[in-house]
C-alpha cells in the first residue's frame, strides 16, 4: 500500500480542487509532505544562488594536494583561462542538473508554483481549524471555565456554579442539557479517579473508544471512481513502460563518456605500430560524425595544406561523411597550426574537448594492449592538441609551447642561441643567460611577456628519476613468471619544497584543467624477437613521489630495461 500511496500523491494532487470541505486530513497530509519537500529544496536553491559552483571549483582547482601547496602556472593567458573555467563551472552549477537556461527557469517556476500551493493549503487549514469541531479537543478546564492549575475546591465551585445554570431541572433548553452532560464529564475527568486515568491515557473520560481507521484520501464520487481507476491504469500500464523505454534508448554513450560508435571505430582502427599520422587519421575518423558539416571549407583547407597540414588518405564514400570529415580536418589543422583566425565557425572548442577525450580513450586502449609505439604516437597527438603544436615535430616544434613565442620568434631564437635551440635545453638554460637572451630587441618581447616566460619555466616540468629498482613483493629473488614491481622514485626538480604541480600550462586549449601526467613505457624482451611493452600512467602531482609498476617477468637471466618517461601535457619532455 505504501508505495501505491506515494505514487498516487501527484494523481490526487491533480484532482484536489474537485473535492472540498471534509478532507481536512488530506490537507494536513499534503501540508506535511509539501513542507518536507519544499524546505530542503528551497534551501538548496538558495545555497546555489549564494555560492554557485563552490564545490566544483574546489574540485577542479584544489589548493593543496596531500598537504603541499599546489603551484598553478600564473602566466597571464593561463590566469584568464582559469577564470573563464571557473566562471563556466559556476554558471553551469546554477542550473544544477539541467543543461540549458530554460530548464533552470522551469525549475524555478515549479518551485514558486509549489510554494503558492502550500500557501493555499495553509489558508485552507486555517479555515478548517476555525470551523471544524474535530479539532476542538475535549479540554475539561476550558469547559469548566477555570485555569489549568486550579485546585480541586475551585473546580468544585465552578462545577456547582455551572450546573446551577445548565441543569435540566433549572434550564429547559435541550442545548443546555447537552452542555450539562459535557460539564459533568469534564468534572469527572478532573475528580473521579477512573475517569481521570482514562482521560490521561486515551483523552476520553469514558475509556478507550473504538478506534476508527481511515485514509487521508479525498472522497471520490461513485461515478468518478471509474475515471480515477482509468487514470491509475494509464499511469502504470503506459507511463511506466514508456519511461523505461526512454531510459533504454539514451544509453548510447559508453562508460568512458564517448559514443559507442566512436569507441567501435577506435577499437577496430587500433594497430600495433601506428605512426603519428595514422593516429591523427584514426582520431579524425572516429569523431568526425559528431557535428554536422556547414560548409566544405575548400579555401581554408587549401591554406592549411600549404602551411603543412596532412589530410586523411582513406576518404569515406558517403558525401555527407566526407563533408563532416573535411570540416573536422579544417578545425583540427587550424588549431594545430595556430591559424584559428582563418576559422569562420565557432565549433573549435567542443571539437577540441571531444578530441581530448577520444585521445585519452585511445591512450588507455593502447596501454592496455601494450602497443608502445602507438601509445607514443597518440601521446604526440595529445600534446599537439593541448599545446596547439604540430604533433609530427615539424615546424617550429616544441619551443612554440613557450608563451608569446610564435614561429617567427622561434626561428630567431634558434638562430641566435644554437646551444639552447631545443625545448629541454631552453628550460635548463641558466636563468641569467636566458633573461639576457630574451631581452634582445629582435625578439620584441615586453617586460610582462618576459615575466610570463620566467613563470612558465618555473612551472614546466623537469622530471628526474632519483632511483629505480625491480623486486618481487614478498620474495628474495626474481624468477620467471613472477609479478615483479618496478619502483621509481621521481622528483620534479623545478618545484621548491612543499609544493605540488597543478594543471599544466595550456593557453591554446579551451580547458585549464589538463593534468601534468606522465607515462612510463618499457619493453620487456621475449623469446627470440618477441616481447611485450608495459605502459603505465603516473598522475601524481607531488614534488617527490614513488611510482609502482607491476609486470610479469618473461625470461631468466639478467636484463636491462630501457625506460621511457614521457609527459602527457608538454611536448619535448621525455
Amino acid at each position, binding site marked *: *500500500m505504501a508505495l501505491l500511496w506515494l505514487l498516487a500523491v501527484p494523481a490526487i494532487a491533480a484532482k484536489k480542487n474537485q473535492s472540498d470541505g471534509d478532507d481536512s486530513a488530506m490537507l494536513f497530509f499534503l501540508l506535511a509532505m509539501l513542507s518536507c519537500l519544499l524546505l530542503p529544496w528551497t534551501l538548496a536553491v538558495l545555497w546555489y544562488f549564494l555560492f554557485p559552483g563552490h564545490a566544483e571549483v574546489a574540485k577542479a582547482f584544489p589548493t593543496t594536494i596531500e598537504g603541499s601547496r599546489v603551484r598553478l602556472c600564473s602566466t597571464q593567458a593561463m590566469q584568464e583561462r582559469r577564470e573563464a573555467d571557473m566562471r563556466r563551472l559556476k554558471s553551469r552549477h546554477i542550473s544544477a542538473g539541467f543543461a540549458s537556461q530554460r530548464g533552470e527557469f522551469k525549475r524555478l517556476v515549479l518551485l514558486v508554483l509549489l510554494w503558492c500551493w502550500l500557501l493555499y493549503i495553509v489558508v485552507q487549514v486555517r479555515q478548517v481549524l476555525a470551523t471544524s469541531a474535530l479539532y476542538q479537543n475535549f479540554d475539561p478546564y476550558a469547559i469548566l471555565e477555570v485555569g489549568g492549575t486550579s485546585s480541586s475546591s475551585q473546580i468544585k465551585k465552578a462545577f456547582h456554579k455551572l450546573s446551577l445554570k445548565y441543569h435540566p431541572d433549572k434550564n429547559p433548553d435541550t442545548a443546555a442539557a447537552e452542555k450539562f452532560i459535557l460539564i459533568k464529564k469534564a468534572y469527572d475527568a478532573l475528580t473521579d479517579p477512573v475517569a481521570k486515568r482514562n482521560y490521561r491515557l486515551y483523552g476520553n473520560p*469514558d475509556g478507550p473508544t473504538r*478506534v476508527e481507521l481511515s485514509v487521508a484520501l479525498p472522497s471520490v464520487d461513485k461515478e468518478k471512481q471509474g475515471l480515477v481507476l482509468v487514470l491509475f491504469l494509464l499511469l502504470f500500464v503506459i507511463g511506466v513502460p514508456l519511461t523505461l523505454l526512454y531510459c533504454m534508448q539514451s544509453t548510447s554513450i559508453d562508460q568512458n563518456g564517448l559514443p559507442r560508435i566512436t569507441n567501435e571505430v577506435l577499437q577496430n582502427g587500433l594497430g600495433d605500430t601506428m605512426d603519428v599520422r595514422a593516429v591523427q587519421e584514426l582520431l579524425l575518423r572516429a569523431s568526425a560524425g559528431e557535428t554536422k558539416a556547414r560548409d566544405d571549407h575548400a579555401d581554408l583547407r587549401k591554406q592549411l595544406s600549404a602551411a603543412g597540414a596532412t589530410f586523411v588518405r582513406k576518404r569515406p564514400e558517403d558525401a555527407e561523411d566526407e563533408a563532416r570529415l573535411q570540416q573536422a580536418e579544417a578545425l583540427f589543422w587550424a588549431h594545430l597550426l595556430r591559424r584559428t583566425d582563418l576559422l569562420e565557425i565557432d565549433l573549435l572548442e567542443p571539437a577540441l574537448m571531444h578530441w581530448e577525450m577520444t585521445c585519452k580513450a585511445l591512450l588507455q586502449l593502447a596501454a592496455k594492449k601494450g602497443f608502445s609505439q602507438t601509445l607514443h604516437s597518440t601521446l604526440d597527438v595529445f600534446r599537439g592538441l593541448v599545446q596547439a603544436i604540430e604533433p609530427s615535430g615539424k615546424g617550429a616544434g616544441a619551443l612554440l609551447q613557450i608563451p608569446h613565442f610564435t614561429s617567427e620568434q622561434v626561428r630567431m631564437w634558434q638562430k641566435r642561441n644554437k646551444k639552447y635551440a631545443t625545448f629541454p635545453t631552453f628550460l635548463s638554460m641558466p636563468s641569467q643567460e636566458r633573461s639576457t637572451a630574451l631581452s634582445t630587441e629582435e625578439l620584441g618581447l615586453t617586460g610582462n611577456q618576459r615575466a610570463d616566460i620566467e613563470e612558465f619555466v618555473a612551472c614546466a616540468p623537469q622530471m628526474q628519476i632519483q632511483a629505480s629498482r625491480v623486486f618481487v613483493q614478498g620474495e628474495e629473488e626474481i624468477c620467471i613468471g613472477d609479478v615483479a614491481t618496478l619502483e621509481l622514485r621521481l622528483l620534479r626538480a623545478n618545484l621548491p619544497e612543499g609544493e605540488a604541480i597543478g594543471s599544466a600550462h595550456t593557453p591554446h586549449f579551451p580547458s585549464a584543467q589538463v593534468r601534468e601526467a606522465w607515462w612510463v613505457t618499457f619493453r620487456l624482451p621475449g623469446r627470440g624477437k618477441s616481447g611485450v611493452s608495459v605502459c603505465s600512467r603516473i598522475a601524481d602531482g607531488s614534488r617527490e613521489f614513488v611510482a609502482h609498476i607491476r609486470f610479469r617477468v618473461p625470461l631468466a637471466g639478467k636484463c636491462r630495461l630501457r625506460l621511457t618517461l614521457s609527459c602527457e601535457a608538454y611536448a619535448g619532455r621525455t
Partner: protein
Amino acid sequence: MGKFRLLDLVKPCMCVLPEVSTPDRRIPFREKILWTGISLFVFLVCCQIPLYGISANKSTDPFYWMRVILASNRGTLMELGISPIVTSGMVMQLLAGSKLLEVDQSVKEDRMLFQGAQKLFGMVITLGEAMAYVLSGMYGPVKDLGAGNAILIILQLFCAGVIVLILDELLQKGYGLGSGISLFIATNICETICWKAFSPTTMNTGKGPEFEGAVIALFHLLISRSDKFTALKEAFYRQTAPNITSLFATVLVFFFVIYFQGFRVDLAVKNQRVRGQMGSYPIKLFYTSNIPIILQTALVSNLYFFSQLLYKRFKANMIVNMIGQWQETEITGQSIPVGGLVYYISPPHSFGEVWDDPIHALFYVVFILVSCALFSKAWIDVSGSSARDVARQLREQQLMMPGYRDSDLPKVLNRYIPTAAAFGGACIGALTIVADFLGAIGSGTGILLAVTIIYEYFEKICKEEGQGAAFMF
C-alpha cells in the same frame, strides 16, 4: 558415467525449466540499474495485488516476525515472498555440503544441473507452501472457499513464486546488481520505514483524528493543538503509533551499522603460482552478517509459540508454568509473557519496566548477547565459512600467507575467524537490543538486514563506477 548420481535425475527436467539466458556481452552500468529497477517494479506490483478468491481474514498473523525477513505481504501475490528461494537454496547447500548430493562445481554441466535442481526444488517448495497455506485455512476454511477457488489461489501463488525465481535469476546472471533476494528484502524494509514516517492513514481514538505517519503526525499535532509544547511532546513520545523518537532511533541505528560495517582485519595473502602477486583477505567484524539474529529470532518465536500453546492447555502444570505464563492485555487483546523463562527472554518495553525488574532486563541482555555469539559460532561451521573451510578455499585458489607454511593456514585463520564470528554476533545482538529498545522502525533485525544489503549495493555501485572512471582516468 558409471555411477548413478542424484543430480542426473534433474536432467530430463532441464528443458522445461524456465531459464534466463546468460548475457552475451558485458552489460553497461546504466542498463544494469534499469534491469534492477524493472525487477523491483514487478516485485512491488506483485506486493500490492491482492489474491483473488480469498475470504476476508481477521485472524492474527502467525508469521508476523518472518514477514520482514522474507519480504512477504499478507493477502497479496507475494504471500510467500522469497521463502521458497531461500529454503531451496539452503537445503541444496546443505545437501551439497554434506556430500549427499555429489556436485563438482568446477564442471560446467554440473553447475548447470545444480542450478536447475535448485530452481526445480524452489518451484516444488512454492507449490508445497501454497498448498499448505490454503489447506491450513489461512484464507478461510477450504469448505467455504470451494475447490475451484482453492486451486485458483494455489495457482496464483505458484505463478508469483516462479516470477520471483526468474527475477532473482535475471539479476544474478549479470543483468542487474546483486541478487533478487537481498534486493527484495531491503525494499520491503525501506518501504516499511517510509510508510511509518509518511503514512497518511488516520485513526480516531476519541481525541480527534491522528495520523499514523510520524512526520505527518508531527505537523498535524503542531498545527491543530492549541498547546504547542504538549503537541510536540506527543509527536515525539506517543505510544500508539510511530513517533519521531523512533524515527530518529532508526536513523541512528542505520549510521551505527554502517560505521561498524567497515571494521575488518585484512590478512595479507600471496599467490603461490604467480609470485609477487599480493592481495588481502578481509575478515569482517560482522563475519556472519545478520544470520545470528535471524536464528535467534526464529528460536525465540518458536519458543513463544509452543509456550503459549502449552499454557492454554495445561495452566496448572508446573513445568509449563516454568517455561512461560501468559496474560492478555486490556486494550489490544494480545498475549504477553508475564512469568517463567519466556518472560525473562522477552524484551522489557520501557525504562519503568527495567527499573521495576532489573533482573529481567539483565537476563534478557545476557541471553541475547550469548545466544547471538553462540549461533554465530555455530553458523560458521554449518555454512562452510569456518577457518578450515576458508583455508581450503584459499588453497584451492593457490593463495597462501607470507611467512607461514601451508599447513599452518587454518591455525592462523583460527586466530581471527571464531573471534570475529563470536564478537560480531554479540555486536549484532547488542545493536538489535538497542534498536528495539529505542523503538526503531522496522525492528532491529530488519534495519540490520537493510543496512547490510544497502551497503553491499553501495560498494558494488562504487566498484562499477570506479571501473568506468578507470577507463576514463
